[in-house]
């Protein structure tokens, strides 16, 4: 046995070291600050304070398991920045707006470190970004403590804007439990389910959404016959799906990121689970990658969403097409959130007309801007602070296309309900 040959202490040391590295995620990618190449005005001699840039820190997951979303949001922000630059809106009072992207590595501790670095070292005028709710929460509390305005792009857990944090603004994202406004309307008018099953990832966003769903279902007398969380990134969902099959729910409400979503619907087909309607709570179920990876299993899957390219708001379609042309990929609502947020930032900065954090906070508070996500204003309601009132939609995959099915006046196709069973297709 070779272990005998090793000195006794070597083995435990090695195991502890290895475990620490593994559990630490060992990504060690470091914070890759991306200076977006928005050059300082090359005025040569005139390097006075007047020409200092207004720095905006943007914290997004650029590596790690959520990197795909971070990349899309960064691209969408840069697209908006270019448009603003052409319109001459990126220079305020002689100072150029500069975006500093920081990577949160899809991890909470890195998100905090990134926020602190941007605030203390780079002395940014304001912060933006925030994809996963847990990371957004950490950034928000840091920003509030240091009195730096923070405009959230995506992070949606309810409690982020329920703490009375006046430096934290959420315009493009709804609180997770309010993603379902249009869905409940659809339920009340069309589906009228008696039983429901809920599965959700055990993240801040997933738990928040499930809680909202449970409360709304209870008030309508819908019985929840199956309720289960799962760890995201799982490989095999068949155990929970076959447990769910035994309960035979009318509808299934699921909150998942994109690849979990694809695996869930593919494996639903495998275990032949046939609800009358499968509805996703935004996030994964609306993404182009969901359809690509789930293939034919994505057909008739519905989802709530905050934005679709063919929505009526001005500029939405143009954004979708410009994005596709520039990055040869499709953007979904995450991209739209980042794009609209960039416009919100530019708008607030132009009214604040300075890099002063308190002035920017005031300007954000007074925002009334029409964006590709609809009109946005930061209001205080229902215990929320600086929270825009969201517009939501129900979409359904039909023949490989994401169609709006509710509200009825915005619908691009009529809904398919109840959906055919796997065997009937």
């Amino acid at each position, binding site marked *: 046995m070779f*272990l005998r040959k090793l000195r006794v202490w070597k083995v435990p040391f090695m195991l502890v070291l290895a475990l620490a590295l593994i559990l630490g995620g*060992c*990504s060690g990618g470091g914070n890759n600050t991306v200076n977006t190449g928005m050059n300082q005005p090359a005025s040569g001699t005139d390097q006075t304070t007047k020409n200092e840039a207004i720095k905006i820190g943007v914290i997004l997951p650029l590596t790690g398991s959520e*990197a*795909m979303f971070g990349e899309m949001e960064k691209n969408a922000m840069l697209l908006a920045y270019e448009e603003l630059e052409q319109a001459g809106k990126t220079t305020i009072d002689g100072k150029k707006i500069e975006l500093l992207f920081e990577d949160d590595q899809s991890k909470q501790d890195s998100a905090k470190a990134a926020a602190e670095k941007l605030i203390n070292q780079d002395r940014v005028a304001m912060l933006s970004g925030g994809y996963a709710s847990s990371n957004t929460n950490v950034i928000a509390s840091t920003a509030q403590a240091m009195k730096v305005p923070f405009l959230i792009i995506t992070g949606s857990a309810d409690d982020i804007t329920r703490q009375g944090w006046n430096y934290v603004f959420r315009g493009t994202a709804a609180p997770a439990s309010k993603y379902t406004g249009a869905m409940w309307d659809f339920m009340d008018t069309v589906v009228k389910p008696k039983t429901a099953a809920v599965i959700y990832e055990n993240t801040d966003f997933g738990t928040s959404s499930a809680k909202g769903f449970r409360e709304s279902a209870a008030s309508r007398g819908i019985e929840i016959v199956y309720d*289960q969380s799962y760890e995201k990134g799982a490989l095999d969902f068949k*155990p929970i799906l076959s447990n769910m099959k035994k309960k035979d729910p009318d509808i299934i409400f699921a909150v998942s990121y994109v690849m979990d979503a694809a*695996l869930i619907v593919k494996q639903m087909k495998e275990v032949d689970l046939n609800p009358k309607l499968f509805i996703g709570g935004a996030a994964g179920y609306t993404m182009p990658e969901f359809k690509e990876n789930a*293939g034919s299993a994505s057909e008739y899957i519905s989802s709530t969403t905050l934005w679709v390219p063919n929505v009526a708001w001005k500029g939405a379609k143009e954004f979708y097409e410009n994005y596709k042309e520039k990055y040869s990929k499709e953007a979904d609502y995450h991209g739209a959130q980042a794009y609209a947020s960039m416009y919100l930032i530019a708008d607030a900065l132009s009214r604040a007309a300075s890099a002063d954090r308190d002035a920017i906070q005031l300007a954000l508070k007074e925002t009334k801007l029409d964006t590709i996500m609809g009109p946005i204003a930061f209001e205080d309601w229902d215990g929320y602070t600086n929270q825009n009132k969201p517009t939501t939609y129900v979409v359904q995959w039909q023949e490989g296309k994401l169609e709006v099915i509710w509200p009825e006046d915005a619908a691009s196709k009529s809904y398919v309900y109840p959906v055919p069973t796997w065997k009937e297709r």
Partner: protein
Amino acid sequence: MLDFLQALIWGILLGGMYALIAIGMTLIMGVMKIINLAHGALVMVGMYITYVLNVQFGLDPYIGLFIAMPTLFLLGALIQLLLINRIIDVDAILPENQVLLTVGIMVVLTETMRLLFHSDYRSVQTSYASENIHIGGISLSVPMTIGFFVALVFVLLLHLFLKKTHYGRMIRATAEDRIAAQYMGIPPKTVTVVTFGLGSALAAAGGALLLPIFYLWPDIGHLFTAKAFIITILGGLGSIVGAFFGGLLIGVFESLGATYVSMGYKDVYGLVVFLLVLLFLPGGLKSLRFPALRRER
């Protein structure tokens, strides 16, 4: 009862593929006495190769496997030859600086793949991906069943290679006592190069077998490193048979846990087994008194 059987079988099928990856790690562990933390990244590279072959040339993942394996053998052998062998003789403050080197290799591999393929999630579409075989109320997913049996064949082939061939004996001799092996005229550096290559090829095989049922992104390696690490400890460091049964055990534990407890704690089950083994069976499965395991040493 049927549920239990179903969960058990799902667990075993998945466990077989975990085992293949872990065996690659344990092989390297046995000969070089280091935990290869780049192992998951090698799985990831193998998956990308299989993916590209599928998307560009329409090669089925199970055929792409036979291109990914030699490629990874070469990559692994080169890593050992050009990187790890260089620092093997160097004395450092940390006795395990080779382990740290593998972390560096992992980061380089992951970021290279991100550069080439971005962070997008990718998966292959096959005609059989959601096919099932039904046997008396139990359903078996076709890609999982194929994956399991191919993994089984590889484990058997490796076993035969190590037991019956001259080179296999050289590898085992080096694992047992590097210095004594050297006295017997075995070149340890060449043996480690071949071993690292073999381990990497097995990692690629595991990845390729998982590709039709899972998906792929550059950071997927961490998942496999953690799994393989736990299984390696569970099986007893350096033991092939131990790692095989360790893999099955982890697969079964995860599947039963998800069925009867909650899927929210998927990763906890593996870690609980890990702690229990460290506490009560510090030598891993191989220290159980099974004659077959004992003979393998």
